[in-house]
């Protein structure tokens, strides 16, 4: 299964992940 997030955010929104990284529910995805 897959979950896809698509959202609007200001230009300085940053992701704190890398492609291929394992992630767990509750961990940071991104922020301003």
């Amino acid at each position, binding site marked *: *299964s*897959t*979950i*896809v*997030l*698509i*959202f*609007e*955010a*200001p*230009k300085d*929104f940053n*992701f*704190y*992940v*890398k*492609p*291929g*990284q*394992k*992630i*767990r*529910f*509750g*961990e*940071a*995805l*991104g*922020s*301003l």
Partner: protein
Amino acid sequence: LHTAPLRSLPRLRPFHFLVATGGGYAGYRQYEKHKEKQLENSGVEIPPKIASDWEVSLYKSVPTRLLSRAWGRLNSVELPTWLRKPILSLYIWTFGVNMKEAAVEDLHHYRNLSEFFRRKLKPQARPICGSHSVISPSDGKILSFGQVKNCEVEQVKGITYSLESFLGPHACKENPKKKPASSSSSSSRDSFQKQLVTKDSNELYHCVIYLAPGDYHCFHSPTDWKVSHRRHFPGSLMSVNPGVTRWIKELFCHNERVVLTGFWKHGFFSLTAVGAQNVGSIRIYFDRDLHTNSPRYSKGSYNDFSFADTDAASREGVAMRKGEHLGEFNLG
């Protein structure tokens, strides 16, 4: 061949034919992989090898929905208590499930694999990050993320799909926060993206998370937002593992999926749960009307449901807190 007596000819049985063609195709694929490896080692960037239309059609012709429902029905049969531990242990071993995090560790508690697949975690197993506005809604692997440009969303590196095909036409009525669509947009794709974004100073971002078979398969709210609309696209149930995702362009637009759209503090927000082979059923806890992986559906159709009660202006949808239980994937 002409002179040999018939009985001495090795009778060409279908099995031999299958082995020969299967073996030939496998050998060809190995050779291709070896060639790509050599090119990669010599520093040549290889574009992802994308399936041709006939390969996609061939794959889509496999009755994966029927198989998925059968698989779901099989796994809903109540197992005798003595059989639960061996079967579930095999699944745990095969997919590397960490049972220490499960709310219930005793395998006899789960009457079948479907119940096990819907297992919950101990609350303390997944602390919610308080310092970032967007958290991961589930366990899994990050396939891709970043800005959405020209209305194309990256599926994996080098392969994109159309945002408009994925979300479908605009559902929300003119929302109060939205500014009128800019008349300058050059193409319809551009205006589709522009109409999603409510402020000029904002961009559109995306993130794709792949859940492996052994992962915890419930999902939660990734931020504080209000869900105003649900769109359910019945569709195929092709595998979405990273290898297939790199092979079939627009894979997420082919598969059964449930698109939740709404608003967060910066404007538009959406979460889409995409079904896959054997995991064709998707539940959204506050959406009783949602029925996925039904036997019959018309191609290209979708079902809309609005949670925004237009009368009560304050209730623009279902308010979801960051980390709140939102839904789950089910076998079948």
